[in-house]
């Protein structure tokens, strides 16, 4: 019999709906996987076993009495530990927040629990999601390599089959990078699509919360459960939330996808990844997509604009904490937080000017070329050994792995457009990677539709790390 943990979120949901399994069985399956894999991968900061089982019993009773509330009812998920969960530890990977228990839920958590999802546990992240310290999580795809951040534990839990789906946060790539590294689908939706009320911010104008799953359909279901306008979040968009799965199977014939080569296919893209993503493009062409070559020179300023904004906005949030509890920060995080305070205000505003310039250039490219999406590699490299993150790249390209990893992801945060990483290959060294689709504002449904047209023709998303097969 198939292990329940190997099924996708939507598959176990269908079984729940058909009365073939119970929510309690799903929690117990996840707990078995946690028991086996956690000593190896360390995905969870805290596991809420008793609470999840209680919630599952309630879900089973409700489903038996009045049916399922929706596709997430009774399904366990993981939540990144920088997202507030009422009455449950939220430590944000930091000694500064050790023992902190929020007295309210983040709006996205509230939405998901209203939809019937059950919180299995909180997942590890880099300290305050900055991405500079080293949490204990390891990717089962390669224990010696960087497992992706800052939504590390979410990525590791889902790829390790100890979670059907998990939430991450993404300020410059922190959902899409661990998704690519861990062979997952990861969505950073449009800015304002998912409320950021109740997330510990990295940078208010760049932060997003989004789903990490094994399949495109699962991702669309989770986004549907968490999205929606939130008066408590001034950046939240008053947009209707469509059924993101409605057009998944509509196909892609006649759609237009933009390819920008100078930036997304630059010399730093590893050959194996370049070839695989070219094959993705060729496949879409074969399915009737019109490929449009475009140019966006303003991409050149995205990295510097993003770092400057992150540093200044982040340090503003930490201003009180760093003075009162500075000694509790990891030294690497502390240095970054202090750095933001020393930058001139003119730099921050110039970075916001640069962002406006880039955002308009990208929107113009979408309008003038009538694009439905843009496509490129999610990352130029698959990952790198943890010990070599700040060393020169092993392939001789003049950059460090850490400098290369987010090269392709920053721009979508600056533009606020939806961006999705989709598995599309595994290197000869056994490391997964993905391609990235960027869509029009609030058109996540189109991004999912395009992604699904690729996923249904391949089995990359079904591949499982050998280490997990063995436990």
């Amino acid at each position: 019999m198939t292990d329940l943990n190997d099924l996708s979120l939507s598959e176990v949901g269908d079984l729940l709906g058909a009365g073939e399994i119970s929510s309690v069985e799903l929690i117990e399956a996840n707990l078995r996987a946690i028991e086996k894999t956690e000593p190896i991968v360390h995905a969870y900061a805290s596991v809420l076993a008793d609470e999840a089982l209680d919630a599952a019993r309630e879900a089973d009773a409700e489903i038996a009495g009045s049916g399922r509330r929706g596709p997430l009812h009774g399904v366990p998920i993981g939540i990144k530990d920088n997202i507030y969960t009422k009455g449950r530890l939220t430590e944000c990977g930091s000694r500064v927040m050790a023992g902190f228990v929020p007295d309210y839920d983040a709006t996205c958590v509230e939405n998901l629990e209203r939809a019937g999802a059950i919180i299995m546990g909180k997942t590890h992240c880099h300290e305050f999601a900055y991405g500079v310290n080293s949490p204990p999580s390891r990717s089962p795809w390669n224990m010696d390599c960087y497992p992706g951040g800052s939504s590390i534990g979410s990525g590791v839990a889902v790829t390790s089959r100890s979670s059907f789906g998990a939430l991450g946060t993404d300020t410059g790539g922190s959902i899409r990078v661990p998704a690519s590294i861990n062979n997952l689908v990861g969505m950073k939706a449009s800015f304002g699509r998912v409320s950021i009320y109740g997330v510990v911010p990295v940078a208010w104008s760049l932060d997003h919360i989004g789903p990490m799953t094994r399949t495109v359909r699962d991702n669309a279901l989770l986004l549907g459960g968490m999205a929606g306008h939130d008066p408590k979040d001034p950046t939240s968009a008053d947009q209707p939330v469509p059924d993101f799965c409605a057009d998944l199977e509509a196909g892609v014939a006649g759609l237009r996808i933009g390819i920008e080569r100078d930036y997304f296919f630059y010399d730093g893209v590893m050959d194996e990844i370049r070839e695989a993503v070219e094959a993705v493009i060729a496949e879409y062409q074969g399915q009737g997509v019109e490929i449009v070559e475009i140019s966006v020179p303003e991409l050149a300023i995205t990295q510097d604009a993003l770092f400057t904004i992150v540093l200044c906005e982040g340090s503003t949030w930490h201003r009180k904490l760093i003075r009162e509890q500075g000694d509790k920060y990891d030294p690497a995080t502390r240095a970054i937080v202090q750095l933001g305070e020393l930058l001139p205000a003119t730099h921050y505003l110039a970075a916001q000017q640069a962002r406006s310039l880039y955002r308009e250039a990208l929107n113009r490219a979408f309008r003038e070329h009538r694009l439905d999406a843009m496509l490129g590699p999610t990352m130029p490299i698959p990952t790198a050994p943890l010990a070599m993150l700040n060393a020169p790249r092993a392939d001789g390209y003049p950059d460090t792995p850490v400098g290369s990893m987010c090269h392709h992801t920053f721009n979508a945060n600056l533009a606020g457009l939806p961006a999705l990483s989709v598995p599309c290959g595994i290197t000869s060294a056994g490391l997964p990677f993905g391609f990235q689709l960027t869509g029009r504002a609030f058109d996540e449904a189109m991004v999912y539709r395009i992604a699904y047209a690729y996923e249904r023709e391949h089995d990359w998303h079904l591949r499982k790390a050998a280490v997990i097969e063995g436990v």
Partner: protein
Amino acid sequence: MGYGRASSDEVLDAAVIEALAKKMGLAVSAGESEVLTALLMNQLAALESFNAFDLQDIVPAPVFRLEGAGND
């Protein structure tokens, strides 16, 4: 995420940065001030990449909303 980029050759005095940080209420030890100064030198060079574009008349929008977000 990786922070910092190639710096220019101008050197900042770590003691000055340490004094500035302390003046602002940040607790920076002598050893840390060297790291902070190196990071600052790198990050101050970040705006060089903007010079290829004319930003002068662009009004920055620190917290923006997408067109059509519906809550303006």
